């Protein structure tokens, strides 16, 4: 039975309450990641300091999701735009949010150079193993044998190479005294929140944070609710979920 209630859904302060339902597809992992990020911003009381940048692709649909200052750029350029902001105003906490296409394919040079220079920002890469917005084509992180629009017989690693592992790549070049590099998953949102907390604290201390989040894409995977969580489990076996680099004194 439908009733009319005066009390609305429980939203974090860092979430925009005016937009109603988000623009993402049913079951999209972006909703879970951004919700957890907003709760973390609330808990660390960074609402006035945070600057949120979203990339092109599905992550662009988060342009009105957050109740913090937001900027949108294209093709992985979120990283340089946000560290430009934090260089000009070091008190701010910069968050660059992108998908695996923006972060690891078209924008990978920005990611690499930001990691080498230990720029002061948090980079979140939502990895759903395909290009979601354009219809589910193969991305650098597509798993071996996975069927996508452009690999209808499954990804052949002899032709297309092995999947990119973003967190391992950044961990190998990041400065261990200034960085926090981790991979998390939307299957455990409490753990994801703990990871975001460490990452944002590190950024507040002036360091560089990189979090790759394993996400889900039920529409382009063509999976129902049970198969979606099963697919995420196989992803967690392939992409190791752990903290790779953690500077000293970070809890």
């Amino acid at each position: 039975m439908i009733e009319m209630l005066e009390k609305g859904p429980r939203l974090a302060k860092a979430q925009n309450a005016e937009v109603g339902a988000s623009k993402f597809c049913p079951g999209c992992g972006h909703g879970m990641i951004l919700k957890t990020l907003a709760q973390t911003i609330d808990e660390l009381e960074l609402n006035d300091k945070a600057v949120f940048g979203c990339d092109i692709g599905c992550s662009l649909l988060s342009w009105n999701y957050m109740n913090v200052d937001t900027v949108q750029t294209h093709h992985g350029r979120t990283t340089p735009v946000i560290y430009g902001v934090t260089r000009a105003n070091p008190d701010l906490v910069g968050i660059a949010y992108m998908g695996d296409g923006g972060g690891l394919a078209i924008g990978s040079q920005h990611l690499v150079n930001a990691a080498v220079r230990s720029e002061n920002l948090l980079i979140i890469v939502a990895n759903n193993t395909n290009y979601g917005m354009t219809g589910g084509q193969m991305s650098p992180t597509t798993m071996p044998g996975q069927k996508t629009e452009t690999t209808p017989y499954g990804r052949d690693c002899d032709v297309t190479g092995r999947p990119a592992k973003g967190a391992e790549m950044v961990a190998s070049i990041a400065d261990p005294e200034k960085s926090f590099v981790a991979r998390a998953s939307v299957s455990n949102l409490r753990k994801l929140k703990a990871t975001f907390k460490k990452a944002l604290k590190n950024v507040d201390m002036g360091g560089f944070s990189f979090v790759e989040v394993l996400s889900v894409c039920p529409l382009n995977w063509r999976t129902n609710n049970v198969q979606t969580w099963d697919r995420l489990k196989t992803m967690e076996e392939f992409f190791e979920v752990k903290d790779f680099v953690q500077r000293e004194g970070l809890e």
Partner: protein
Amino acid sequence: MTKTHKAIKVENVAKGKADWHLYTDYCKGCGLCIVKCPKKCLNWSKEVGIYQTPAVEPNPEECIGCGTCELVCPDNAIRVEKK
């Protein structure tokens, strides 16, 4: 005028310890909560969500009001209020 929200309300779940709400203007019917529920007590509802797909509803006798569905919902559609 205060804003009101359309919702499915299931009162007194978990032996009267909690109320369970689902906002049908937010629920997109993805069903991820059904798999994550530790008691497997969520089922498809007869009411529909924002995309005219079925929403979900718990069995009030089995629900323990743990709030896992609220945690996992990508669209903040579920609110479990402990009394």
